[in-house]
């Protein structure tokens, strides 16, 4: 009887159709987050494809401790991190930022300031930011994807907000003085 109960509790692995459904529904969000983390269009795209391929290979190890989508997010994040490291070691700083001269209008420079500030955030905060704003995940899903506590997500996002707010305020003040 006990054995039968245990057998009942073993979660079924996701089918290919389940994974494909998440892939197709969330493709643009996966792509956007992976690009932001991997640092480029091609490595981002590569990370999404490779992340899902890894998920398919590992689907029998899925334990349903979080939702399938959350688990797939963690697979894509891992692939994006790997892709970024490989990219860094092979190709230096392709597409590094270009700064305008003093006469350029405010918006592009403000975005450049924001991009700089985002890139200076600790890696975990940056990933949480992307998952929150690009993927529109709630705190619980972000926690599941990054394997951290929900409270950690809240605290880290608050810290990231403060850093970015200060950065933008400083830049806007500076622009007004000019």
């Amino acid at each position: 009887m006990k054995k039968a109960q245990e057998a009942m509790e073993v979660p079924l692995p996701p089918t290919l159709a389940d994974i494909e459904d998440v892939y197709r529904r969330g493709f643009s969000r996966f792509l956007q987050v992976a690009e932001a983390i991997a640092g480029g269009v091609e490595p981002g795209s590569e990370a999404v494809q490779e992340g899902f391929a890894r998920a398919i290979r590992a689907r029998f190890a899925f334990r349903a401790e979080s939702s399938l989508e959350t688990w797939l997010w963690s697979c894509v994040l891992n692939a994006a991190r790997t892709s970024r490291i490989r990219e860094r070691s092979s190709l230096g700083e392709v597409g590094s930022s270009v700064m305008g001269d003093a006469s350029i209008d405010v918006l592009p420079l403000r975005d450049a300031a924001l991009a700089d500030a985002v890139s200076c955030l600790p890696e975990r905060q940056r990933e949480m930011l992307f998952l929150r704003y690009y993927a529109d995940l709630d705190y619980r899903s972000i926690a599941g994807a990054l394997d951290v506590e929900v409270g950690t997500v809240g605290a880290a996002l608050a810290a990231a907000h403060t850093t970015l707010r200060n950065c933008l305020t400083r830049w806007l003040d500076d622009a007004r003085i000019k």
Partner: protein
Amino acid sequence: MTHESSELCLRLHALTPRRDEQPDWMDVLARADITHVPMIGAASVSPNRPVNHGRKSRMRRRRLLVNKRRMALLAALALVVITPVVALGDANGWWFLRSNRVPAPVPDANATVVADGQWGEQGWKLVTYFSKTDGLCLSMMPQDAVATGKGASMSCAPFVGVPRTPTTKDTPDLRITYLGASATAKLPAYIVGAVVDDATEVDIGFADGRVLHVPTSTGPPPLEHVRFYATPLGASSSGSQDSGVSLRPAWLAGVGASHQIVTCLVLPPSGNVNPSVSPCR
């Protein structure tokens, strides 16, 4: 979502906009070594493997693993033979003219070496090309990486006097640009860039008040109206080369032959770095 979060969300989306790329599920399946999938509409279905794998199943997987390892070994051996051929093929072209990670060059684009030199034991080249969308592109690369792009860096921007295409970004033509990179195994940290032709020197100011004076040189045709500069950043001028932030100048000024400032660029403050007093104000 608060107003502040909405604003942040909008700005973040502007940094990495969503693209209209189509999903490629078949590619995912191929990468996962799934070759026999019945196609039923958009969603392909495959039966679940039983949760409790039997001995036969484990044996089958082990055989598959051994076969995979054999295939990987064969592939590695094949690569050893193929690699010199590929390397020869690459030596015929610049890495950025084939890469899809950088702005596409205009049709029949030619790369122009605008400066070269040697820092320590490593030679380098500063090369430009005209892009379809991003104006003048500059790429700095180790001498031995012109074909592979290994250790290269690049930045692009519309520049004064460089012809625009119908698809060039609608941002102003710049009068001075810079491209900075941290130290790698091949090259020290450096700053290179382009400046208008009446600047014989570029002064680079850092947040801690230090200023580098870098001479410029005229570009070859068709870039005679642009001057270029390149300077390594030793440990003493960059502070900490690993931090990245300290390599970023606070301002750059193009200085003419009569020591007058002909163009100036103030960079927005980043992180906790306070901009130094610049001659641009």
